[in-house]
């Protein structure tokens, strides 16, 4: 990809967003997902929070169908692809998949809280934490 646009979504609205870091000069878009907002009855409190957050980032703001808006933004900038951050929400994953049927899409992983050598056992927190806690603390050194 030489001329991508960035799709910035609700899970990575900060300067640590890996797409913003990798492509600081690329045009970047945030879309208010009107279907989600209506179906989940998202209140104005959250919309205001998202809006104020987005205003502190170099983003174009739109609302509507996210896939259609991202593809239109790519055309507007004659982009050859889309870069985004990997999402956890299945809704964001579905949007990413739909974008990818039209344009090359690169998903970059955000910085992990803890990097484990193999997938941890989930199911109950204590199992996970037994494996994760010592690794989290590896990067800590008392100031003395």
């Amino acid at each position, binding site marked *: 990809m030489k001329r991508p646009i960035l799709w910035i979504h*609700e*899970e*990575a*609205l*900060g*300067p*640590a*967003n890996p797409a*913003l870091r990798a492509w*600081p*000069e690329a*045009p*970047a878009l945030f879309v*208010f997902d009107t279907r989600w*907002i*209506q179906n*989940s*009855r*998202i*209140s*104005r*409190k*959250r*919309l*205001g*929070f*998202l*809006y*104020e*957050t987005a*205003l*502190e*980032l*170099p983003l*174009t*703001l*739109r609302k509507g169908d996210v896939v259609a808006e991202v593809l239109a933004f790519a055309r*507007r*900038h004659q982009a050859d692809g889309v870069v985004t*951050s990997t999402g*956890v*929400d*299945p809704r964001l994953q579905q949007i990413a998949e739909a974008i990818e049927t039209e344009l090359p899409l690169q998903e970059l992983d*955000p*910085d*992990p*809280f*803890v990097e484990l050598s193999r997938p*941890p056992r*989930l199911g*109950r*927190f*204590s199992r*996970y*934490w037994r494996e994760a*806690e010592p690794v989290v*603390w590896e*990067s*800590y050194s*008392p100031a003395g």
Partner: protein
Amino acid sequence: MPTVQTTSIPGDLPRTFASRKELERLLVEEFPSAEGSLSPIRGGRQAAEAKLSQVNPARYAKSRNHLKGAVTGLSPYIRHGVLTLAEVRDAVFQRIRNRNDGSKLINELGWRDFWQRMWLDLGEGIHDDQEEPKTGHAASSYAKELPADVRDGTTGLACMDGFRDELVSTGWLHNHARMWMAAWLVHWRRVHWKAGADWFLEHLIDGDPASNHLSWQWVASTFSHKPYFFNRDNLVRYGGTRHCDDCSSVHRCPFDGSYEQLEGQLFAPMPAIRSTGNGRNRRDGRPGNSSVNRGRSGASAALARPKR
């Protein structure tokens, strides 16, 4: 961060506002279906960093279960990646003198990471009961709709109506208030956890199906070995008496009583609740609360936390 120059076209939403009022007006116009007003909690990295600079991990560890405790208020920012868990972790590391001072807060960040990993695993399945409820009541016996008096905050219980008001006006609630509300709705009002969880997501600025739905399921016992409930002593111990002081229901408080009494009232006898067990079949830990009494064998929940 460099600002990218892009020329505006029709349909782009404005990026400059004279005031928050003006932003609110735009939101009313552009998103007419959304209800309510702006929250006093501001979005943005600056607000997030201001909150982060206030974090005191050692005080947090001592007081986090209290409504007035030194909790961070970072959840809306973490939920939206304004701050990453990695950034918060590093800020905690920089601020503590020893590991002990930070272990509680790091542990709570771990809860968020855990729920996120569970969501990746479960996908849309997060909306379903993970297990049968252990309350002695069939899943189908819980109401599917949120009662109107709960939604409107007119139940006559000063604590619950107060939490509802805070939820609706600010979009944030202390963890303990979330647990009490969830337990009251599911176990006292016999409303299915999903109705409460969806309502929370309408309002919570940090609303996130991972932390929210799975915490509700943990309370309901569809994702734990037994239901979470509480009594008035517990509420007063961590919330003070400010609600009870002017509560019209103070003399018929549904939370009055010992855990044994309430357990008998709320749940139909069921081996999984009654048994004191040997620790093997018990849920280990809870959504981030170390002083929760889970009824007869509940005091052991803390003991059942991972031992090191």
